[in-house]
């Protein structure tokens, strides 16, 4: 594909919901699909967080849920034709970066102690359920 073709593809994608100005009225169907994808990503991330045993995978699933929240923010921002939703995505990115740094530091620390990434290696931390 030529560079002009690639550019045209981007223009096509970016103008699905109308002309390429922010002021163009939002397309309710595009919004609905975005929100549906956001809901699905959140649910899948939740299921992944509950079912995976690998600690890194659990944190990756929280990132998936953050991603779903970002999609919902941008979708609702488009619905109200307001950029505040996108500004909040910047803060989500900040929190995700902070979480990645801290969580992965913690995972490395835990891995050094037990030589495994399985969260069940630390199951004695929970209270014993009789």
């Amino acid at each position: 594909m030529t560079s002009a073709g690639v550019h045209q593809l981007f223009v096509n994608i970016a103008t699905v919901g109308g002309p390429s100005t922010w002021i163009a009225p939002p397309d309710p169907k595009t919004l609905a699909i975005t929100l549906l994808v956001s809901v699905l990503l959140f649910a899948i991330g939740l299921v992944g967080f509950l079912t995976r045993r690998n600690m890194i995978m659990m944190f990756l699933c929280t990132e998936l849920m953050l991603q779903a929240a970002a999609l919902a923010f941008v979708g609702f921002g488009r619905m109200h034709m307001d950029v505040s939703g996108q500004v909040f995505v910047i803060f989500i990115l900040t929190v995700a970066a902070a979480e990645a740094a801290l969580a992965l530091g913690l995972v490395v620390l835990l891995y050094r102690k037990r030589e495994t990434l399985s969260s069940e290696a630390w199951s004695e931390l929970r209270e014993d359920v009789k």
Partner: protein
Amino acid sequence: MPPSLSLFAPYGLYIAGAIGAVGLFLLMRPAAARGQMPVRALGAIIGLAGFGLLVVEVLSRIPDVGGVPVFPTLLGLIAVAAATRMVTHNKPVFAALYFIMVVVSSAGLFLTLHAEFMAFALIIVYAGAILITYMFVLMLAQQTPSGGDVEGGTQYDRLPREPVPALAVGFIMLATLSDALFVQSPELRAEASSAQLADAARAQWTALELMPKRIEREVRRIEPATQAIQRGDGGRLLDVTADGRATVRVMVAGDNGSSQPRDVELPASAMPTNTQLVGLALVNSYPASLELASVILLMAMFGAVVLARKQAELGEDERRDAAGMRRMSLDDPDMSRGGRA
């Protein structure tokens, strides 16, 4: 209004979600051995059917305005499929790569929503920075495969923990959220009214008011003979009407060297771009949050350094120093009384 196209109204959304949950459950099963029924392929087909039904259900609740949005649906399908594969993949490294796919396709969705800046910022920050950190730690904490490890992945990566309760929780979350979004809130399905559009246009012109250089550039493009821009009431450059149009009063060079006033109406293309609006909102409306974000990043950096640092073994002398005690030495007369300072 009850949708006409909906298949199992009014429970279509929940049925579609339940079908998707069944598909995800089958996808979580361990890969089938040769000759057995391919459970995972079956799960993929059922999950795809669930996604298709959900899309039909959601779109059928919206009054018809144009056809099915092709790009958002395709990008959404890629995102959901990659997320599913990420959650079910045995090898964490591949799961992280699938997460990059989720990020890229949701950046595509951002493009369809006219959020161009966030789309590319997402790719740079998420796919470029955060995921690289994940990959780095995955490589660092790589498990050495122990005996009988053929299909790849360690024991704890192959077997999901309690999939049925987890899927029940996920299904309830899906049903609640989709009910709140697609059943309970009719304003989501309505098209924007002309009053809303005019409000949004006025908000855009208000933002442009803070960019005098851009106003001047746009005015000079329309009226090259502009000598000066005149400010109106309250020192405003733009005169915005209630229906969302903006005019600028400029002084134009006349025939005989004199200058005369003229009103220039700005076209919609003069409105600030998405990147300009995001930047303006960030520093104009949320400056305190911006500062807090930088503090959060700084604290996270300190925290990561403290957590990941190798714990240094302290010698006897250092431990006594840290406790505020005198170092032990043989010719210390206080040693006979326990060495306390």
